[in-house]
């Protein structure tokens, strides 16, 4: 279900597009070297360099010191299975352009879902009004920037039919049911997304990106002795149709079944402070919540983060290295270029225990006078970019997993989470543990479930006393919410010991 009329993605369309470049350029611009690929994106959004420059000029007309245009066309499809059959599908098409003007730290923003020159100029005037000292804007020389290929794919979702996808979703159901006779209900979802992005700014930078995403999920409900439990397993990558294969289905089906089974008979620990061992993988949620958000530079430039005065200072043990990375291939959190045209980097937030960098967008990197880190992200053309995480992880450390568990007298081992949150200013963060184990006298003993863990970011970071070598990236469907905007992220962690966190539980 593709909405665009032009043969934008088909290779056969390239020749036709090529013949259009020359007259368009001769008519509208001087000495522009537009690649054929870029021309396809311009055609896709029915704009020319001349139009982009006109809109930017209008956006800058009130004295803004920077402006950008973010064109986006997103097509998403979902197939849903319930009660044994793939019997529901959803398709959504979203299209528009966001127009932003900056004046110092101030932002003016408007968007339009109609990419006509008149509507764009109207949006540009609204955004421009953040500034009010008219001066002459000199258009920068147009500079096309190509993007690295962090998510090359084999088969595009636009070329994949419903019939090709259905059997994979059906297989998830069939496999979950085969694995355990206690299964009473299965739901399965396949979501694929294709995003086209075109970006132009007042510095003349012109760039584009093609952003695929694929997620497959299973929810399993089981009944045992009249009790019901349910659990969830999902994987998500920036991949095409090649994402779907039998190994992936087996991984998701067996994880959903194992996780559900585990919950029967699981209990609660004693309430209170205790050592917490975070198993490798999804425990990266600790980094995301306890420090990641508090390192986002918008909070720090406003002085509202608990880490506002900590740059260059020791915040963790010297064996701890925490990284923010947007370049991991086919990862859910990867981006070829950020949503304000900056190169995407791998940044050490904490190096040898020292706080080295915040997470920056354009406004904050200018504010702090540092290079952008490529973390300016937005949910869609309807939203302004903010400093956002991509893939947040900790490098492997010097300790062994067995030694870490053996070091705990009474505590919990946790490795499966559903969600987390943080209070940026107070530093208190939480994550919800779907399942884990009690640790008694250095050994994993009884299963536990459904408990919240709360801690304070700087304290928890300082309290990480052991880090193992078993690093793992979690490829679940993590979505990060901030200021009403959702972006896909991922995370990872080796097994670590946090000496003391407050664990939800019973008081009997």
């Amino acid at each position, binding site marked *: 279900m593709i909405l665009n009329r032009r043969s934008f993605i088909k290779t056969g369309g390239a020749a036709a597009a090529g013949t259009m470049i020359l007259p368009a350029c001769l008519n509208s611009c001087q000495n522009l070297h537009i690649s054929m690929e870029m021309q396809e994106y311009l055609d896709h959004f029915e704009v020319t360099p001349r139009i982009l420059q006109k809109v930017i000029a209008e956006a800058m007309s009130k004295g803004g010191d920077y402006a950008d245009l973010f064109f986006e066309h997103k097509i998403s499809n979902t197939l849903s299975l319930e009660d044994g059959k793939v019997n529901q599908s959803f398709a959504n098409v979203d299209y528009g352009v966001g127009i932003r003007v900056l004046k110092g730290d101030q932002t003016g923003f408007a968007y339009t879902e109609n990419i006509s020159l008149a509507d764009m100029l109207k949006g540009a005037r609204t955004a421009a009004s953040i500034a009010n000292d008219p001066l002459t804007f000199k258009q920068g020389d147009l500079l096309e920037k190509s993007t690295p290929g962090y998510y090359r794919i084999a088969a595009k979702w636009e070329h994949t039919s419903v019939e090709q996808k259905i059997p994979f979703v059906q297989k998830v159901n069939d496999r979950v049911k085969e694995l355990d006779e206690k299964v009473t209900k299965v739901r399965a979802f396949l979501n694929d997304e294709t995003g086209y992005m075109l970006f132009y700014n007042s510095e003349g930078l012109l760039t584009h990106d093609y952003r695929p995403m694929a997620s497959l999920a299973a929810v399993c409900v089981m009944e045992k002795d009249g009790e019901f439990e349910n659990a969830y397993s999902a994987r998500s990558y920036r991949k095409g149709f090649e994402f779907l294969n039998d190994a992936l289905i087996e991984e998701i089906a067996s994880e959903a079944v194992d996780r559900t089974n585990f919950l029967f008979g699981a209990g609660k620990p004693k*309430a209170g402070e205790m050592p917490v061992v975070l198993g490798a993988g999804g425990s990266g949620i600790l980094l995301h919540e306890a420090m990641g958000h508090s390192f986002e530079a918008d909070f720090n430039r406003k002085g509202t983060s608990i880490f506002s005065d900590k740059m260059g200072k020791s915040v963790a043990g010297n064996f701890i290295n925490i990284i923010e990375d947007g370049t991991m291939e086919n990862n859910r959190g990867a981006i070829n270029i950020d949503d304000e045209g900056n190169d995407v980097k791998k940044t050490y937030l904490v190096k040898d225990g020292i706080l080295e960098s915040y997470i920056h967008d354009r406004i904050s990197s200018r504010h702090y006078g540092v290079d952008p880190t490529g973390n300016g992200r937005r949910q869609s053309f309807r939203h302004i970019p903010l400093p956002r995480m991509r893939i947040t992880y900790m490098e492997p450390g010097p300790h062994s997993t067995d030694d870490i568990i053996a070091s705990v007298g009474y505590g919990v081992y946790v490795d499966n989470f559903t969600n987390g949150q943080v*209070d940026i200013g107070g530093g208190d963060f939480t994550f919800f543990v779907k399942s884990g184990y009690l640790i008694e006298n250095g050994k994993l003993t009884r299963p536990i479930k459904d408990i919240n863990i*709360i801690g304070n970011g700087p304290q928890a970071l300082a309290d990480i006393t052991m880090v193992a070598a078993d690093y793992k990236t979690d490829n679940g469907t993590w979505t990060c919410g901030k200021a009403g905007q959702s972006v896909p992220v991922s995370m990872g962690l080796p097994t670590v010991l946090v000496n003391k966190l407050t664990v939800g539980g019973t008081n009997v």
Partner: protein
Amino acid sequence: MTREEKYSIARWAMEHALGNGAQQARVTISTSNASQVEVREQKIDKLEAANQLNMQINLFVDNRYTNISTNRMNDKEELARFISEAIAGAKHLAPDTFRGLPEPELYYKGDGEDLRTVDNAFSALKPQQKIDHATSAEKELLGKDDRIVSVTTSYNDRLSGTLMVASNGFEGDRESSYFSLSASVSVKDGDARPRGSWNESSIDHNDLVTEGIGTQALKRALDKLGQQKIKSGTMPMIVENRLSGRILQPLIGALNGAAIQQKNSFLINMVGEQIGSGLMSITDDPFIIGGRGSRHFDSEGLATRKRNIVKDGVLNNYYIDTYYGKKLETEPTSGETTNLVFQPGTLVLEELIASMERGILVTGFNGGNSNGSTGDFSYGIEGFLVENGKLAMPVAEMNITGNFKEVWNNLVAAGNDVRLDSSWRLPSLVFDNISFSGI
């Protein structure tokens, strides 16, 4: 697009679907016109305008079901192709005989009174008035306290519209407006920067409370100075009215038809049973004049009704839409809440605190979740320790953990402080025997 233009394109899309292989179709057009002004350090930090238009089409094709949406509806040729492709794709899905539009006799017939959910002067508001609101909220705080490290004030407004046509005889539209003014204040407390915020909102611009917002936000920030966690223990808990929805939401979620049919509810087969203490009475009332959740029809066009959800702790009603009604072999009731009205008690919050010997007043939640199948929950909280009827100290970094089947039976008091600025009209609530984890 005018109202008539929207009806026209919606009817056209519906007819196109019916003429190209769909037996039934419903088209919903949603609009939203919103603006935001954020002020910081006596300057406008952010100015945003947002105008959104979206068409959603539910297609019923040979006992199969697909749901498509787009914000591109200018080009009819393109829209026609989008619909036709969706119909062709739907034919590959498995049949589902439970799918279909609602029975026409259940539709809203358009004879209800004006529920006053919209300010007709919405578009008349000038940008400068919006800026002035945010600026004056900030002014309340200038030079007020040396400990302030950051103040952000924000004005928001939104005009939302829904317009729907269905092929078995429904047409309807409704609008609602929303104005809000909020302040967020961070203060210095060692390395920590506790934040307090406050928000007022209204349907009519003239009703928007514009004074005291900054002051209230500052008070809530300063109240957090010196937060500590205390020893774990089982104690009573007061949940502030603004937050009672966090405790009620999982219970309402468990009444949803999909949760019940998919065995993901801890309230299966509980109609007629006691699910909470005698103090728990909840009515769903769609017809409150000026209510934030007031509406004559839901997202399927079903006529809304005033319903008793829980009466004196006994469950009376689920939330069941047309699809799950058929699956569960029961009449649909509407799958959505409108205005959820919790029967208030007699005491104000100060009196609830005064009558507590030792417990915790919860003024903020931090993360956590619940298990829909079992009712188990665990949430992070902050608030105040109450001792001998007085707020003794601010607390934070603690969890509450329990099971909703037990917690609602431990409801021992409801305040008379129902907040009317939300579709869920809830008072402060007091529960006994809550397990807190701290030190």
